[in-house]
C-alpha cells in the first residue's frame, strides 16, 4: 500500500477541514482527489506530506507513519504545492540544480525521469522562473518535485490556472510518469480530469463521497440524465425547477442537465409542460453521465442529509 489513510480528521478552530476520512492508494496508482475549492484537499495533502498533524486518525505514506517517521518520508516523497513555490529570481536550470542538490542527487542522475518534461522547458533554461508562463512554471515545478525520483508524488491542484492545452500535456506527462512505477496522488477541481485517473475519491466539506475508478462510479450511478435545451435558457431553468417531480437542474455546457425523482418519468411529460409554458425549440434527450453529474448528485444528497441531521 503506497498511501493508507484511516479515520483522519482535522479542524481549524470550529471548521472541520477533514471529517473521518479513510482510503487507500495502491502502489503505482494514479489517484485523483476530486472536489471543489475548500473541500479539504490541501489539508489532506499537507497531512500526508508531514506538514500538518491530524487531530485524529492514522496516515501512512510508503509504509511510514506521517507523524513519527516524518524525516524518512521527507526524503522519499515529491511535493508540488498548489501555489507556485519555486524561486522566482533563479533561472530554470538554477532551480532544478538547487532541488537536485538538497535531495543529495544531480540532474544527470535522474535525467531519464524528467527528460520528457524537461525537453519542453529546456529552450528557456536561462530564463528566471518568475518570467515563465503558467504552463511552463508547472512543468518546471513538476521537474523539481521529481528530480530525486520520489516513491510517491503529491501534486496539489497542478493544473489550476493553466490553459487547456497545457493541462492536457500535463496529464499526458502524469500518465507517462505512472509507467515508471511512481505512485501519484493528484488533486483537482476539474471534473473532466477525473476520468484520466486510475481511481478517484470525490471529496466535499471534508468528507469522502465515493472512492472508486471513474468508470465504476459513473456506472453505478443509476439515474438517467436528460439534456434539455430551448430558446430562452434562463427561463428554461426557472421553469424546470418549478416542475413538480424535478430532482436536479443545473447548467452543463450548452445544455441543462435534468434528472427526475420519479422512476416512471417520461420525457414527453416534460416536453408537454415546457411547450405549455411557451418554450420554443424544445429538445430533450438522454445524456452520457459524467463524473460531474455524479458529483453534483452526490453533493446535493449529501447536503440535504446534512440539513436533515
Amino acid at each position, binding site marked *: 500500500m503506497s498511501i493508507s489513510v484511516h479515520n483522519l480528521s482535522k479542524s481549524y478552530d470550529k471548521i472541520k477541514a477533514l471529517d473521518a476520512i479513510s482510503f487507500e492508494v495502491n502502489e503505482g496508482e494514479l489517484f485523483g482527489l476530486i472536489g471543489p475549492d475548500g473541500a479539504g484537499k490541501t489539508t489532506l495533502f499537507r497531512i500526508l506530506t508531514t506538514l500538518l498533524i491530524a487531530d485524529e486518525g492514522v496516515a501512512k505514506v510508503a509504509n511510514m507513519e506521517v507523524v513519527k517517521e516524518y524525516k524518512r518520508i521527507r526524503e522519499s516523497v515529491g511535493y508540488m504545492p498548489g501555489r507556485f513555490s519555486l524561486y522566482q529570481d533563479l533561472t530554470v536550470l*538554477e532551480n532544478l540544480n*538547487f*532541488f537536485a542538490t*538538497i535531495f543529495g542527487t544531480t540532474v544527470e542522475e535522474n535525467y531519464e525521469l524528467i527528460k520528457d518534461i524537461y525537453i519542453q522547458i529546456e529552450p528557456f533554461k536561462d530564463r528566471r522562473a518568475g518570467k515563465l508562463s503558467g504552463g511552463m512554471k508547472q512543468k518546471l515545478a513538476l521537474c523539481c518535485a521529481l528530480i530525486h525520483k520520489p516513491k510517491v508524488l503529491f501534486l496539489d491542484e497542478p493544473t489550476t490556472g493553466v490553459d487547456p492545452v497545457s493541462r492536457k500535456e500535463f496529464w499526458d506527462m502524469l500518465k507517462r510518469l505512472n509507467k515508471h512505477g511512481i505512485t501519484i496522488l493528484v488533486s483537482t477541481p476539474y471534473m473532466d480530469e477525473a476520468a484520466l485517473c486510475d481511481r478517484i475519491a470525490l471529496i466535499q466539506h471534508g468528507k469522502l463521497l465515493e472512492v472508486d475508478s471513474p468508470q465504476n462510479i459513473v456506472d453505478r450511478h443509476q439515474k438517467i440524465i436528460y439534456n434539455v435545451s430551448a430558446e430562452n435558457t434562463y427561463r428554461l431553468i426557472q421553469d424546470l425547477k418549478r416542475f413538480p417531480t424535478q430532482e436536479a437542474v443545473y447548467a452543463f455546457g450548452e445544455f441543462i442537465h435534468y434528472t427526475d425523482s420519479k422512476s416512471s418519468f417520461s420525457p414527453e411529460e416534460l416536453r408537454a409542460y415546457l411547450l405549455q409554458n411557451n418554450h420554443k425549440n424544445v429538445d430533450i434527450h438522454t445524456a452520457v453521465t459524467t463524473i460531474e453529474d455524479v458529483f453534483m448528485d452526490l453533493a446535493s444528497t449529501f447536503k440535504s442529509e446534512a440539513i436533515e441531521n
Partner: protein
Amino acid sequence: MKRFIGFVRKEFFHIFRDKRSMFILFGMPIVQILLFGFAITNEINNVEIAILDNSKDNETRKIIQKINASPYFNIETEVLSEKHIETVLKKGKVKAILVFESNFAEKLEIKKLANVQIITDATDPNTANTISNYVQSILQNHQQLLNKNARIPYQISVQTQLQYNPELKGVFNFVPGVMTVILMLVSAMMTSISITREKELGTMEILLVSPLKPFQVIIGKVFPYIFLSIINALVILVLGFLVFEMPIEGSYLLLAFETILFIVTALSLGILISTISQTQQTAMMISLMGLMLPVILLSEFIFPISSMPLPLQYISNIIPAKWFIVILKGIMLKGVGLQFLWKETLILLGMTVFFIVLSVKKYKIRLE
C-alpha cells in the same frame, strides 16, 4: 556538505539579484558613515554670533578680535541697541549675542569689575550650552592675560586633559555607533526578511518536505550574511580611518573576534524574529521598531545612558548594542584588551546563546 554549499550558493543569488538588498548591504553603510561623520555632529564650527558693544573701547575691541579669530565663531553683525536683540535672534541665523556694558574698559580699570552678557538662542539647548561655554572660556583666557602681572592671593589652577579623544571629535563616537547600527540592521533585519520571504513565497513548504534539517536551512540562510557583515565592518573601519582618522589603538584580532561575536548575536536575533513572523513586512516592522530604535536610542550611540531615567537605564542593559559599543570604544580608542572587556564579551556571548536556543525551540518543523 554539498547540500549546504548548494543552499548558500542559492542564497547569494538571491542577494546579488535584489537591488534593494544590495543597496542596504553596501550603499547604506557608506552613506550613513559619511552622513554621521560630516553632517550630524554636535561640535560647533563657524557659528554666527552678533555683538552689541555699548562701550567700543580698547578692551572690548581686543575681546571681539579674539572671538572672531577663533574657528568656532563668525561675527555676523553689530547690534545697534538693546531693542534689536530680539529681532536679530528671531531671524534665526545668529545663534548668540554678546553684550558689553558701557564704559567697559574704564570699569575694568577702576572697579576691577566689568560685565558681559551672553544671550543665546536656546531653541537648540545643546548648541546654546556649548556656545556659552566656548565664549566663557575665551573670556577667561583674556582675563588671565590681564592678571598676568598681578598676583592673586589664592588661585586654583585647573588643567584639563581630554584622554582618548583630545580634540573631542564627535565622529569618534559615531563610527562605533554607526558600525553597531549597520551590523544590527544588516544581520538581524536582512536575515529575518530573507527567512520570512521563503515562508511568504511558499518555498519554505518545499524546503520542509525535503531532507534538509532545520539547522541546515538556518545556517545556510545566515552564512552569507555573516560573510557580508564582516565585509561591511571592514568597509566602515577603513572609511573611518581614511576619512575621519579614527584610530584603532587595540588589537585587531580582538576587534575582529568581538565584531564577529556581535554579528552572530544580531543574526540569532534575526532568526528569532523570523520564527515569530509570517510575512516579510512583519519581520521588517519588528526589526525596525524592536531593534533599530533601541539600538539608536538606548545604546549610548547618541544619548548618554547615565543621564536617562532609571527604568530606561535598566532596559538599556538588555540591548546587545550597548555592550558592543562599550567594547568597540574600548578597543578602538582606549586600546584595552580582553582583561577589561571580558564582562561585556561574556554578556554578548550569553545573549547569543539565549537567542539561538530560543529560536531553535521556536523553529517549526511543520506548518503551524
